[in-house]
């Protein structure tokens, strides 16, 4: 579904992505592990169009999207859920979710998607008229994921969804991701630091270090220690 081939990107003079190649197949959950600051978020941003790709190719269902700006990739079924969330603070939960369905392609299924979001995140249904600036960390994560779902995306790229959350909430987020994948058949590309949870969820994993892919494994063929060791 998503094919990234020899992707490169720079921040000014600094190369952040080096010849990155990976793929995500339909209905899979792929986890991207690796030390902080090595470019995992940049990779996701480059795929979504928020960060320019200097060379290489990104194909979504066979279509080349590497030169497209962010607002166009969303309309094609790709949603990026940033670690910083970037919610609209002075709007309510429901207004934020509504805006998630901004692109024309999301209009048709808006009601259905909204019901699904409130289904997997009942807390959001309770707080639907609350301003997002008043939400807790876990709740704003839910809104961010929900907003991505509202776009009707078939591929969700989620950047560290459990970061900063209490253990109970972390599990909730991972369960939600599993449900999204299982019940809606939505493909997931996940960046995570919670290696154990990530391995449980994922079908395949990639290890990303210093701007490059180090290796790829099927999730069952690798364990937490191996991955942790690869960090150093």
């Amino acid at each position, binding site marked *: 579904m998503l094919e990234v081939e020899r992707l490169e990107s720079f921040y000014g003079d600094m190369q952040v992505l080096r010849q990155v190649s990976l793929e995500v197949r339909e209905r899979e959950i792929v986890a991207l592990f690796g030390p902080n600051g090595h470019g995992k978020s940049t990779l996701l941003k480059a795929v979504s169009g928020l960060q320019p790709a200097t060379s290489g190719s990104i194909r979504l269902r066979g279509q080349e999207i590497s030169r497209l700006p*962010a607002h166009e990739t969303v309309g094609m079924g790709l949603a990026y859920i940033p670690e910083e969330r970037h919610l609209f603070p002075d709007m309510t939960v429901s207004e934020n979710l509504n805006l998630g369905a901004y692109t024309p392609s999301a209009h048709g299924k808006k009601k259905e998607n909204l019901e699904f979001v409130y289904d997997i995140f009942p807390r959001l249904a309770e707080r639907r008229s609350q301003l997002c600036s008043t939400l807790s960390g876990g709740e704003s994560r839910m809104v961010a994921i929900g907003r991505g779902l509202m*776009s009707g995306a078939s591929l969700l790229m989620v950047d560290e969804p459990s970061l900063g959350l209490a253990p109970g909430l972390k599990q909730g987020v991972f369960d939600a991701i599993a449900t999204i994948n299982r019940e809606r058949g939505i493909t997931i590309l996940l960046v995570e630091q919670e290696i154990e949870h990530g391995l449980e969820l994922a079908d395949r994993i990639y290890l990303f270090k210093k701007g490059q892919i180090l290796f790829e494994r099927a999730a069952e063929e690798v364990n937490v220690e191996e991955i942790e060791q690869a960090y150093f």
Partner: protein
Amino acid sequence: MESFVNALVSALTTGSLYAIMALGLTIIYGVSRVFNFGHGIVAVLSAYFTWLFLGQLNLGLLPSILLSLPIMALFGWLVYRYSINPLLHKPNWEFSTVLFMLGLGILLENVILQVLGPRVKSIPVFFAGSLSIGFVRIAWHEISLILIVVLALVALNVFFRHTRTGQAMRAVAQSIPGARVVGIDVERIFGYTFALAFAATGFSGILLGTKYYMTPHIGWDWMVKGFVIVTFGGLGSTTGAIYAALILGLVEALVTLYLGAIWVWPIWFAIFIVVLLLRPQGIAGGRM
């Protein structure tokens, strides 16, 4: 007592005009963070267009107004697309955009001066005569101005809350990365914002032109007052701007009544300084 009530009525009219005037400034700043130093000239330009269509082309009052507004909107979009947008991508854009709009203001002021001359002009009132209730006398025109402004504010509110583009503008005002992530074309929204803001400011200029005399230079007065209002109300907050406009309209009316018109400008500046010193984020200090 009589003059006090009349002053209150006058304050309501002035405050309303100031409200619609300040909104144009607030909208641009709120969404794009560009502080429009061409605010005054946009208002003046629009008033002069209306005057021109009325006098030279002999169109009716309403058609003249209705023709000026889309022209101002288009002008706003063009200014954004061909000048502000390129500047935003370069370093020091906060400074360069201010300089650019200031320069554009001076240029246009002098163009108007050359083409239409320095003599004061005005736009005719919408209704003649006045209404008397007891000792209070209010011109029908002033009543119409207040109603028009209220309608315009309601319309804008509906636009921002219930239309897709209006919501997109609020989204961009609150989080540009968030807006990109949901698929909003931020540059396109900036363009629409400038168009809307120039139309709103232009509309306020026309209304002001029916109450006050117009010269090419009066834009600077309106601009400064606009700055004080949006600072007082809280940069980027539309509700703040409206409250501030009404309060300052009231202050101006009372100052004129009890101290004399000559104190109006010093009081405006005094308020500006006090706000900046004590509460620079303004009444609302928030966002759209």
